[in-house]
Each structure stands twice: as C-alpha cells, then as structure tokens.
C-alpha cells in the first residue's frame, strides 16, 4: 500500500531581506512511517526548512505542506498535524514534568487526558517515575529532552519535526532517544529530523538529505546508504567533489 505523504517541501526558497539565500529551491517529501534526516553543517538551511514548515517565516518561493495544507496560507490548520521539538528544550522550569506535558497537550488539542495518561507517556520516553512531579528547574538536558519528546508524542500528530534533538545529549541518552523515535516510526508517524550527526542519521534514518548553503545536494535512502560510507559521501558533497 502506498504510504501517504505527510510533509512536503515544494521548491522551497527563502531569501532574506539582506539578500542571503538561506534555502534554494528545495523539494522533498516525508511519508508516514518514515524518518527523514536533513543532514548538513551550520547554515545549510535545515532550521530554515523547519521554520517554514512551522510558519515562523514565509517562503520567498515554493510551498511547505503539512498533511496537504499550505503552512504559509493556513498555518493554524497546518499545525494541527505536526508536533515539534526544538534544539533548546528549557520548557517551563516552574512546572513539573507532568504540568509541562499537560499544558502542551491541551495546546495541541488533547483536553481530556488524565494524570495516568501523562504518566504513561512520560514512562514511554523513559523518564524516571520520581521525576514526574518534580519541577523542571532541576532537570538535566537529557531529562528535559525526554519531556520534550513526550510533548511531541502526546499530541499524536501525524508529523513530528525535531531540530537537532540529540545535540548535547550523552551517548546513552541519545541512544534511548533514538529508540523512542523508532517506536514512533512504527506507529506511522512521519518524522523529520535536522542534524549534523552523520552516525546517528545513518543509524536511524530511512532517508537522508544532504544540504549545504541552502541547497539540497542529495537524497539517499537507507538501502542506498547500506553500501556507502555516509561520512565520505557527505564530505564529498560538501566539498563539491560530487555533483549535486
């Protein structure tokens, strides 16, 4: 059965007022049950793409579609179908993990969840039970990241966008995080991840898109990458040794 396209970048272009071209005619799709990694160095245009999907900025050209809805024309409708986790997950330090989850769940349209429902999600992301009702001000980055992921999960949106989700996490925490992403994939979520971590991208992604200076240089599927050295391929593309 053909999998449904959830996220689609159609010829996405963003040129800022100062003339900087942050994104240059980028097109790709992310289907349900797919983990799509945007791989690139700083300034490659990964976060710009995400900002366009979330309606934080308007494209100069092209479209960012979520579940078929143009995120620029109808951002509020489009955002019903997407959950997001940013690279900076401070959340609300005066709230407990459960209170943070409750706030974002209700914001995402899930109003009737019980305390146990929240606990289940927090367990799912691997947060220790004793931390459920603790204020976030004492949490480590890894613990906050787990709560952030719980926020993304609890919304039950078909698309999940993660911006540099494993940056700053220790290897164990990063590994646990990726395991949870795999669970989400099996639930049929379309997951878009921006990262510059080549090894994690290869480990988890179904599709890897290599970006540099606003351009999409290559899109490789997991099958294509099985017999390739992703690090070498990435560097070759970045250094222009391979034509895009």
């Amino acid at each position, binding site marked *: 059965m053909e999998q449904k396209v959830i996220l689609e970048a159609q010829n996405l272009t963003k040129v800022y007022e100062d003339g900087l071209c942050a994104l240059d005619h980028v097109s790709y799709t992310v289907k349900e049950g797919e983990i799509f990694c945007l791989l690139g160095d700083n300034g490659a245009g990964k976060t710009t793409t995400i900002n366009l999907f979330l309606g934080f900025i308007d494209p100069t050209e092209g479209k960012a579609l979520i579940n078929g809805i143009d995120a620029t024309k109808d951002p*509020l409708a489009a955002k019903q179908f997407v959950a997001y986790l*940013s690279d900076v997950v*401070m959340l609300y330090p*005066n709230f407990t993990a459960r209170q943070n989850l409750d706030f974002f769940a209700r*914001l995402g*349209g899930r109003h009737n969840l019980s305390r146990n429902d929240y606990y289940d999600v927090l367990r799912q992301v691997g947060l220790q039970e004793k931390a459920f009702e603790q204020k976030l001000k004492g949490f480590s980055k890894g613990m906050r990241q787990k709560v952030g992921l719980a*926020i993304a999960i609890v919304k039950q949106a078909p698309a999940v966008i993660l911006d540099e989700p494993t940056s700053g996490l220790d290897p164990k925490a990063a590994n646990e995080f990726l395991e949870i992403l795999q669970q989400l994939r099996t639930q049929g979520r379309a997951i878009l991840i921006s990262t510059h971590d080549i090894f994690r991208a290869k480990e988890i992604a179904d599709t890897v898109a290599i970006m540099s200076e606003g351009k999409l240089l290559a899109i490789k599927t997991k099958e294509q990458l099985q017999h390739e050295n992703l690090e070498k391929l990435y560097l070759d593309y970045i250094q222009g040794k391979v034509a895009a």
Partner: protein
Amino acid sequence: MLKILLEKELRDIVYSTKFAITFGAAAVLLLLSFYVGIRNYQESIKEFESAKTTNATNIASLTDWRSVQHRVFRKPQPLQVLVNGVTNDVGRTTDMRASGELNLINSRFSADPLFAVFRFLDLNFVVVIVFSLFAILFGYDAINGEKEAGTLKLVFANKVSRASFILSKLLGSLLALGVPLLIPLLVGCLMLLGFGIPLSGAEWIRLFLLSIAGLLCFGVFLTLSIMISSLVTRSSVSFLLSLVVWIFSVLIIPKGSVVIAAQIIDVPNLDAVESQKRKFTADQMQKRMQSTQNYFSSRSMSADTGFATAFGAFQDSLGKAYEKERFDFYGRLNEDWRNKKDWQGKWAFGISRISPTAVFQIAAMNLAGTDVEMKYRYQEELNRYQDTYAKFMTSKVGSTADFMRVVIRRYSGNQPSEEEKPKPLNPVEIPDFTDQQRDLGNTVAASLLDLGLLVVLNALFFGGAFFAFLKFDLR
C-alpha cells in the same frame, strides 16, 4: 486557547521563586508603610492634642485678652500619613494674630530631623520604587525570555495565534501580579480600621482611588516592560532598557522637570520676597513710631479713661491704615510670586508627566490632599480664621491693635483695683480653628487628569506590546 494560555501564565508566575520573593518583599513593605503611617499619624495626633492643650493652658493662665498669644495647629489627616507629599515640609504651627501676615512654623522636619532622614517609607514610595521594579522584574523577559528558553517555538508549533498569546501574556501578568498586590492593600486597610484611624466615607473613597492609581502605575511598568520584551530579541538587553526607563521615570524626569521649569520661569526665592517685606514693615514701623511720637508730643499723658480711649482709637485708625497699606503691598508681592510659582509648577508638572511614576505621584498627592497646593489651601483657611479671630478680639478688647498694646493696657480705665482679683481667661471662648479639607468632588477632579493619563499609558503600552508581538520574530 486563550484560557489555556492565560491559566499557564498565571501558574507560571505564581509558582516561581521570583514571585514568592518579590511579592513577599512588596507585601512586607506595603504593610510596613501602612504601619509606619499609622504610628506617625497617632504620634502626630498626640503632638497636636498636646500643643492645643498647652496653648489653652497658657491662655487660661492670663487675665487680659490683650496679652493672649494664641496659636493654631494644623491637624494631621489620616491620608497624609500614607502619602506624605508636602505635608511634612509645611509648618504645623501658626502664631495667630488679629492682623498682619501669618507664618507657618515648625514643620515636621524642623521638629524632628530624624524624620527627614527616614521620610520615604510611605505608600507613595512603595508604589513608585517597589511596585515599578516588581513590574519590570516580571515583564522584561516575558516574550524574549520564552524565545531564549525555546518555549515560544514549542507553543507556536501548535494552533496558537499571536494575538491570543500576547493577550494571555498581558492579561495573565496583570492578573497574576496585580491581584496579589490587592491582598496587602486590603490588609493595610484592615490595619487602619484595627488601629482606629478615623477615616470618613470620602477618605475611604480617596484611599480606594489611591490603590487603583497604584495598580495602574504598576500596570504601566508591566505593559511597558512587556512591550520592550516584544521589541528586543535578547532579555539581557530588554532588562537594561527597562532599567534605564525606570531610572529616567523615577529619578531623572521628576527632578529634571523642576530644573527645566526653573530655567523657563524665573521665580525670586522666598528670602528675597521676605527681605522686601521686612524692609517695608521696618519703614512702616518707623513711620508709625514717628506718628505716635507726634501724638504724644501734642497731648499730655494721663491715666484716665479718656486718654487711653483716644490713644486706642488713634492706634486703631493708624493700624488700619498701615494694615491696608501692608496688605496691598504684601498682596502684590505674594500674588506676583504665586503667579510665577504657579507657572513654574505648571511647567514642572507638565514636563514630569512624561514619567508614569510622576503622574502617579501627582495623582496620589492630590487624592491624599498633600499636593503642592496644600500650603496655599491651608493658608487660605488660616486667613479666613484670622478674620473670625479679629472679630472675637475686637469683641473682647475693643481693638485689634497689637501695636502699643502695653501702652493701651497701662492707660486703659479697666485696670483692676488692688483688692479686685483678676479672673483667668477661658480659652474655650476663642473660636475653634478647623482646617477644612478639599471635598471629594474637587479631590477627584484634581486627580482625574493623572488617573486618566495612567489609564491611557496602560492602554498605550498594552497596545504597543500587542502590535510589537505581531511582528516578533519567533525563530
């Protein structure tokens, strides 16, 4: 959606340690200002009653109304102790005379220099310094702080409009911080009742309006700092900007406005005016002495009723003529000085109204009756009383002439015989002096402009924050 955001805003503020500390400090200072005010009021009332008693005792020890040195005292008002304004700078005591210019002496500061050192802890201080800082501490990172923490993007990854977010921010902050401040204000009011401070219905209304003005002033700083937070990307920069605005508002603009007004309207200092008055009085005295001397040289002095009556009448007519001359001269001087001072005041207050705290201070002083006009209003009351007192003295001694009182007394035919024991005076006979306060209508009218300005500033910064956020870069 607005409800969810509003609820989060309220909880986020109330759960924070920053709130517990700052609210605790503001509440303690607010209650302290009430307590200090109440104690000062009770102390002032004691001093007032004691001074009145001493004055009555002094009068009762005399036997001749001509020897009376009557003093009147300004009665402390309950609201004056909550908003000091100029009340402690205005003299509390006046040597009452049937004629001549009345001077106010014994200000609170001249009587108790320590009071001048610790003059600032009143409701006005708490609102101007503490409430405004409190507002800035919570408003400066309201928007850009959420951006720095990454929560702004998380929130806007949901079906949330910018309008509902900024509205929840503004309303939530106003509610979460404003409503708790009502608690110590209400406790302060209960303290007034508990300590038996006699507040009339009109004074309760004025106190209510005063509290509203305080909350409006707080609202101005809160909405202003949220607006700055919506205009600036980094919270450290918005904190600095908010602090600069606070310094200008609390310290620089109010003081600067007085300096600028003094440059625009040159008003002679009071010493120069007093010096002119003294010279005029000295010249008058000289002339009067000369006239009296001429009077004596043209008549033979004898201890009979006829001479004393004639001399008294002569002094009366002379006194009236000089009094009229003095009254006209002093009146011209005072009017000229007052007109210039009024214009200077208008300029100073006009300029200072750029500052929200100055606007609050002007409103608060008007509501408490401790504005700069207080001295003039009190002097007008004294002048009215002087007429009553003059009539009373005339009824008692047949003349209001202070001058040559000894001569008149010595040569008057009313000298008691050796056997006749003089009766002590009854001070109760002297008409009572009551300092009429400005009525509620006039008080509200006087503070309406500034209360309105505070409302306008709230609306302006509320709108400013709202529209600034609509353009805010969420990334």
